[in-house]
């Protein structure tokens, strides 16, 4: 049940992606509290049936459809009750494997982020380097990098390394491309103001370019946080001999035809993805309080 609820939140949050580039439009003056129903973006709006009823109805319809499908196609869909039972009786198994996958994903994310950010700064400051790197980065960004997971397993073995590498690679290019764009999109007239007072490149970078790139960075992070889990899981599934992680749990369970375990693992992965997305969104609201994207 909780897994399904979270899915609803994902669709609500993806709407946030529709961002405007510059914060030129004024915000309405501070009016009723966000804990008042009259506030246009009230935080307690969900007490109104008009807000939650459509969602609850949709969940009920989906559950019914699943139930009906499970009766017609028992080899595709296990009954929801079996999934719930598997989750509750083996909770330790799922959380243990989830922690392994989450660890790989976040370590890869951190590595990819650090590398991408540093390279983006370097290429924005050194035009020849940018001309060398950018075309390759654009091509690799649209290449399905998960496809090299089997090769990495051959190279690095069944340990956590290939998972970390895949997660890092997947995260690297969207962050690199977005941050590069953000560093370079400072309006010309702003640059002119700071050039007439002879701001150094470091001062310009720190006071102007990096803050200007933050909205672009968060746009990338919202894509890349859930993607890092995809990378880790795919790498786990490609390493047939690895012992732990939800990807391993899924491939072992499907080879033994344990459908409830497969779907329970998928549900746990979905929850993890949502939690990561939630974490980015919360941090974004704090950091980008000045930007339009933080206000919807």
């Amino acid at each position, binding site marked *: 049940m909780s897994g399904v609820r979270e899915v609803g939140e994902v669709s609500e949050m993806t709407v946030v992606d529709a961002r405007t580039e510059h*914060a030129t439009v004024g915000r309405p003056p501070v009016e009723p509290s966000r804990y008042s129903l009259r506030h246009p973006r009230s935080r307690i709006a969900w007490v109104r049936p008009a807000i939650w009823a459509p969602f609850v109805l949709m969940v009920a319809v989906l559950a019914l459809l699943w139930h009906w499908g499970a009766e017609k196609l028992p080899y595709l869909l296990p009954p929801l009750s079996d999934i719930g039972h598997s989750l509750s009786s083996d909770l330790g198994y799922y959380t243990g494997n989830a922690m392994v996958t989450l660890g790989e994903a976040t370590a890869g994310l951190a590595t990819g982020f650090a590398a991408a950010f540093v390279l983006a700064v370097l290429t924005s400051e050194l035009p020849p380097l940018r001309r060398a790197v950018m075309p390759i980065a654009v091509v690799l960004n649209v290449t399905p990098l998960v496809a090299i997971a089997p090769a990495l397993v051959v190279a690095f073995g069944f340990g956590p390394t290939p998972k970390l590498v895949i997660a890092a690679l997947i995260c690297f290019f969207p962050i690199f491309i977005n941050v590069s764009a953000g560093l370079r999109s400072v*309006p010309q007239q*702003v640059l002119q*103001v700071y050039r*007439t*007072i*002879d701001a150094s490149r470091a*001062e310009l970078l720190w006071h*102007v370019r990096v803050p200007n790139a933050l909205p672009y960075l968060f746009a990338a992070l919202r894509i890349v946080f859930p993607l890092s889990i995809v990378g880790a899981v795919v790498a786990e599934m490609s390493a047939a001999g690895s012992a732990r992680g939800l990807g391993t749990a899924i491939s072992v369970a499907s080879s033994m035809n344990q459908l409830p375990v497969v779907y329970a693992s998928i549900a746990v992965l979905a929850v993890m993805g949502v939690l990561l997305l939630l974490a980015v969104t919360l941090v974004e609201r704090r950091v980008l309080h*000045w930007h339009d994207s933080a206000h919807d």
Partner: protein
Amino acid sequence: MTGTPALELRSVHRTYGFGPSATIALDDVGLTVPAGRFVSLIGPSGCGKSTLLRIAAGLEEPDHGEIRLHGVPPARACAAKMIGLVPQSPALLPWLSVLKNVTLPHRINKRAARRRERITGSGERTTNAPDMRQLLVKAGLGEAMDKLPAELSGGMRQRAAIVRAFGLRPDVLVMDEPFSALDEFTRESLQDQLLDLWDELKTTVLFVTHSVSEAVRLSDTVVVMAPRPGRIVDTIEIDLPRPRNDRLFAERRFHEYEDLVRDRLHSAWHREAA
């Protein structure tokens, strides 16, 4: 100090593009501005006003010609933070409050103060950084100090940009149509505030405008330019008393100056058409 002009351009040329499609943006432009003068550049679109301003502010190099600000080339004037720029758009940083936006330039290029002392001789202008809060209050932004630029009106943002430039106590203040995006009413009140601030600091101003009455109202000298090639065709001294208040604008002398500038603009236009 009175000997060296605040701004001096000698036979400045600037051409954009090559061959038959080249645009001569500035052709043999010379201009001397004594310290403390308010000088406006006026002329039809494309006559090189912005180009002249960018070259004077060291944002662009001329093809040839010489530029001196208080006797030093623009690059050295920038390094000494002697130039304040107000661009056409406010160009505020959207993530900083108004107060932080106007104080950020003080935290940048801190070695400028000593360079500037060496160039201008006395450090009297530079020693006490003006209280930015006080300057903001004077510009009517007292309430808005801690707001973000997105929460201000267009006129307030432009005022913040002017305060940011004045806060540097620049030896030369360059402004490129700073009021062109504002409505008539806001523009007039900003003109008054600009004159108030200028009265206090008595800095040299180079001001680009499209509006004849704005030029006459603000300036000591109006420089008329013409396009193709971009050049200076006339220099008109506006000999009206200061402070220039509302009563003055009702006077005949004021309108005579307006007519004179308009007349020179037209004759430049027709000479070109002929």
